[in-house]
């Protein structure tokens, strides 16, 4: 039993550095196993380029199981590729057909400068979390884990939101390059849990401010983010973010 193989032409974005002009480059790879994932295919391409004395394609990946958020690219015009709720590393060649041309380019957004080829700088996300995406509790200061009961459905909803991997696809997909889904996910997780309540106003104001400062756009209700999110983060989290922000703004005088 030999696995079926296919031929793929890759049209891939090459850009040597942040300030240089980039362009597409085409390569055809033959006899690819359909069980191969996209990063594995790029590795095959890179081995080939290396043997030809050329520079391999730079692309980020690490866990290869859809959890670390390291990988990411726009595939045929869709951030993280055409499969629903799927990261680049979980996209397999069996999702494509023989002799297909696949276009691969980096996530593009003002707040995510390109470093090289598909590699981008997403440190803006870290700075947004620094602005308030945490509970202020020092190690050792925690009460017993069962002191505050959490209704099961709230814990589940918080978990739904907490699953965000920080990959940035939502930003890349948004016509305004907004980071609302990412920020909404973190705000929601902590607003749903009693542990996050004491700081909810401060958190909402400060994270939204950080988001603006980093150059992310504002939400135009296009829902593109939800459509591409590999972790299934719901747009309801954006609604909750808006509520939390409004609530915090109204209460600003007393609380901040």
């Amino acid at each position, binding site marked *: 039993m030999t696995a079926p193989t296919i031929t793929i032409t890759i049209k891939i974005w090459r850009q040597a*550095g942040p300030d240089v002009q980039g362009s597409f480059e085409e390569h055809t790879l033959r006899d690819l196993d359909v069980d191969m994932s996209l990063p594995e295919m790029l590795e095959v391409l890179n*081995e080939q380029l290396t043997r030809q004395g050329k520079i391999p394609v730079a692309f980020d990946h*690490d*866990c290869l199981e859809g959890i670390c958020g390291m990988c990411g690219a726009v595939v045929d015009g869709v951030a993280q590729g055409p499969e629903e709720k799927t990261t680049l590393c979980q996209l397999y060649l069996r999702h494509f057909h023989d002799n297909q041309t696949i276009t691969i380019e980096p996530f593009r957004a003002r707040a995510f400068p390109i470093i090289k080829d598909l590699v981008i700088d997403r440190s803006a996300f870290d700075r947004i979390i620094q*602005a308030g995406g*945490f509970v202020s509790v020092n190690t050792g200061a925690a009460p017993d884990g069962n002191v505050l009961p959490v209704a099961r459905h709230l814990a589940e909803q918080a978990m739904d939101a907490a699953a965000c991997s920080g990959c940035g696809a939502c930003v890349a997909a948004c016509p305004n390059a907004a980071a609302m889904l990412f920020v909404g996910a973190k705000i929601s*997780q902590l607003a749903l849990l009693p542990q996050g309540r004491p700081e909810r106003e401060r958190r909402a104001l400060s994270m939204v401010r950080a988001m603006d400062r980093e150059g992310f756009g504002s939400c135009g209700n296009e829902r593109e983010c939800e459509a591409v999110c590999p972790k299934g983060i719901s747009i309801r989290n954006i609604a909750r973010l808006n509520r939390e922000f409004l609530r915090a703004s109204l209460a600003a005088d007393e609380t901040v």
Partner: protein
Amino acid sequence: MQLDARIPAGPLTDKWDNHRAAVRIISPANKRKYEILVVGTGLAGAAAAATLAELGYNVKVFCLQDSPRRAHSVAAQGGINAAKNYRNDGDSIFRLFYDTIKGGDFRAREANVYRLAQVANNIIDQCVAQGVPFAREYGGTLANRSFGGAQVSRTFYARGQTGQQLLLGAYSAMMRQVAAGRITIYPRREMMDLVVIDGQARGLVCRNLVTGEFERYGGQAVVLASGGYGNVYYLSTNAVSSNVTAAWRAYKHGAGFANPCYVQIHPTCIPVHGDYQCKLTLMSESLRNDGRIWVPGQAGDRRQPAAIPEEERDYYLERKYPGFGNLVPRDVASRNTKEVCDQGRGVGKSGRAVYLDLRDAIERDGLEVMLQKYGNLFHMYEKITARDPGREPMMIYPAVHYAMGGLWVDYNLMSTIPGLFVLGEANFSDHGANRLGASAMMQGLADGYFILPATIGDYLAGTGHEPPDTGGKAYDLAVRRSEQRIAGLLKNTAGKKPGLQTATHYHRRLGSLLWNECGIARNRKGLQRALDAIPELREEFRHNVVVPGSGRELNQALEKAGRVADFMEFAEIMVRDALAREESCGCHLREESQTATHEARRDDEHFSHVAVWEYTGEGRAVMHKEPLSFEYVTPVQRSYT
């Protein structure tokens, strides 16, 4: 090399408390004068960095990824243990301690493991307070499940993404300290060398992975939390960037490397399906609660699984271990799976796979129930293999998963280099020769949140707080050494001589050599063969590896080649360690050391020790022993028949 474990005196249950009361501490006003360098932002590194900063120290953290939130810990699935006894099912700190030390086949220190069991409860409290969305019961209390064959229900979890959630908790605590100005993060940095001045670890030379520049950092102590070395086998369940480089640099400066041959091989992973693969995927072993493992009774039987009648199937674990069946420990399951495949009874394309069959459970409880329990695993399996485990049995095979070996540390988590502390999977401390499920995260977070922050003050109290001269000789030397390493890797870039190969090519060959000769089952002859082959392979690598591009830019091929170069050196002490350990223990069967019924035979008389390797020059090493003694538990031979 002095191996003083510095275990505090007193009864087992009081050692940690006594120790904390006795160690020196730094006054709050003085802490800010100290700078601590933390390499790694996994559970261990992130927890340590956040806690040290909360205490008032200045902290710099380094990681390979673009954000500290992406460290390999993010991929842990199943859960984290603690003896909360919320279930009232008879759990206790002593029971968790006993299970862990027995699971490690009596090759870990009693005092360390007891302390781990003690602080585990505080970890859960801390993570809950950070907003980690652990699974809950309807009444709102924390849920537990039983994991890895434990007889009590002590595993806390957040769906199948416990590692992600615990890591994000630690990461957020760290981000809070970044905002407070006490932590600076340095992502996309690779530690290239340790700087030791007057016998003390004082700094690092890192390569900025974006610009290729070497950067110099100094402080009063260095904390390595750089993870495990499972990727020496090329294929493992670890993240692609997991490496031995940071630990290896420390080793070359005199840090002892303990038990390098102890590697855990997990029985339930998705089998290898092509030579282009660079990583394997774990299927949680919770599947063994309902899945039955089998192969055809006859070698070479190529029929579809459904066409093989019941009486022609061999449920080999149930047959050989009627008491435990499919729930035997990881090592026993892995070893037997290898054995049936060696007999030609493996299934799938490669013949290196066995069936994990949920048919009977589905018939008994219905598909609905199975989907509730394992839906995400079914989904993941189907995504990767395009097969539906609800309709046909899954195929699984063992894969390298976790490194129990690591840099030797004393009770304070300090290595044999003063001022160099080692946490998490990078150290050797608590799992002996085998790690129980859901205990790696427990250990990493215990080290980072509770142990290091309590012990590091004792060291710092004796060091003063002047910063080292980063322009000095020791740094210049470290930079020069690093430049030479990079230049060595790049020497074939321009040329076109025949026979050049990529680093991945050599990594693959090293991995398959180790998997065959130093994997699940080992024997003297095979290990000797590996010892002969490794230096040859390493030489070939040095001459013929081709790395494109330059060192002054983002160059992922160069990063990879550097890590492979270190694996090539490390592999040798790993095999030497395996050769020296002439007993079966924990994860490994040493074929010369078996019982009459072909079960593993441990040899306490000769091998109840930690084997610690000291670097004595290029390609040379000597082994020292730290004897293990047991006062509170009696080592028993494990038996699962």
